[in-house]
């Protein structure tokens, strides 16, 4: 009986969570559609959440591009298809590596920051203070973060795409003696611009996931410092799981047909 009870409670909680997230997203959309946007706060958040993530995105995408090239370039040359390495790296970067890597890195850094900040505001009554002043926490806090990530994550993805391709090209040159011209020509021919745009669309969706999950986890924080810790962990774990699930779904819809 207890197993059934636990399963029932878990299912109810999962639906309640999904409903809460959907409600928060709908509330945020209402403000965005009504153009009730705080531009200054959005720019601040774009800097804090986006610009300050540049270095970590550069590092992760550079090394991932390099590893990808390292694993593939030498063997590709052995099989006589070294001229395809650029295309392979660029193809993977634009469709998967760039959007996924930057999203996962930003979820770890920024999703946690959003949940921790809003969670701290809950436990110090600052959210209630906003409400008592007749201000909506969604408009004041969630919308700027949502818009900031919606804009900044695709830009970070462009950066990740470029950096991983450069890293891959450098390693391909050193270890497999593939010339830059060959690498770039292959990359250009393998990745249509449409694929790059689809990759950026994916990253915009991931930006929404990170902002909404981080905000929702933060705003439902209960129980002091321990609650903030839980909210932060929950935001990162849930965001990353959803990013993987949505990545599969979006890849299926955008690229498989």
């Amino acid at each position: 009986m207890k197993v059934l009870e636990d399963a029932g409670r878990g299912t109810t909680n999962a639906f309640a969570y999904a409903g809460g997230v959907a409600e928060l997203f709908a509330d945020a959309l209402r403000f965005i559609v009504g153009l009730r946007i705080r531009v200054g706060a959005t720019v601040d958040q774009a800097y804090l959440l986006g610009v300050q993530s540049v270095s970590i995105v550069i590092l992760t995408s550079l090394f991932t591009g390099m590893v990808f090239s390292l694993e593939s370039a030498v063997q590709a040359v052995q099989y006589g298809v070294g001229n395809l390495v650029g295309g392979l790296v660029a193809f993977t970067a634009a469709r998967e590596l760039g959007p996924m890597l930057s999203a996962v890195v930003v979820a770890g850094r920024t999703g946690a920051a959003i949940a921790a900040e809003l969670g701290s505001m809950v436990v110090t009554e600052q959210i209630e203070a906003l409400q008592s002043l007749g201000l909506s926490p969604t408009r004041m806090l969630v919308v700027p973060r949502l818009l900031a990530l919606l804009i900044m994550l695709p830009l970070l993805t462009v950066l990740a795409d470029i950096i991983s391709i450069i890293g891959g090209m450098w390693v391909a040159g050193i270890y497999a003696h593939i010339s830059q011209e060959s690498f770039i020509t292959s990359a250009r021919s393998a990745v249509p611009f449409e694929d790059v745009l689809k990759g950026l669309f994916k990253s915009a969706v991931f930006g929404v996931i990170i902002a909404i999950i981080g905000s929702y986890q933060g705003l439902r924080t209960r129980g002091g410092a321990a609650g903030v810790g839980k909210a932060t962990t929950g935001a990162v774990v849930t965001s990353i799981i959803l990013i993987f699930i949505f990545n599969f779904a979006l890849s299926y819809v955008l690229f498989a047909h």
Partner: protein
Amino acid sequence: MALWARLDDVSVRYGPKIIVQNLSLDIVEGAITCIIGLSGAGKSTILRLLNGLKKPDSGRVFVQENDITEMRERDLIELRRTIGFAFQFSALFDSLTVGENVALPLREHSKMKDQEIRKLVSETLDSVGLAHVEERFPAELSGGMVKRAGFARAVITNPKAVLYDEPTTGLDPIITHVLTDTIVKLRERLNGTAVVISHDLESIYMMADYIAMLFEGAIVAYGTVDEIRRSPNPIVQQFLQGSEVGPIPI
């Protein structure tokens, strides 16, 4: 006596725990009503019921004759603009300066020019005894100054009522006296209603027009300061005397 608000047979639960049960309370317009009671008795919950931050599980809450129990969040936002709330720990936004904190409701709700807002912020801070702190951050202020900055933010829009959640808790007697005096002066200046949650009996005797005592989720005594001090209710007397002996379990 006109009423500013009325709680009618209200019950509130947090999970299985009953916080307030079948509670009824009238808040007289233009008066200072102090709510006393043990820690965890549900006093702060009453304040949150009065501005719609908390919805009752049963019963009705009326503010200025409007039933706010079923009010939509959009309408509650409008209502809250007429009610100031000074939080127990002030709840100032730590990323904003004191001036920005106090100015926030004006910047969001009014079409006043920046210069007018700055002037009003400065005057309001002056009225609570805080001068020249606009550029400082909350973390740079003492406990008493933070409380007063919270008061200033609560009253800057000239609300019809101000709710104070334990305004003097943890402060020294001098600052406690200053804050109590500030609450009385603000009520006079706004010509409105004040509801104060406090444990500080000296401070309550100084400012209260009416006192309500909350015990085990219900109001067990209500009256003027003299009526409450002379109350024959043993719960009230034990609380006022701070005695360990009596019907209140320790």
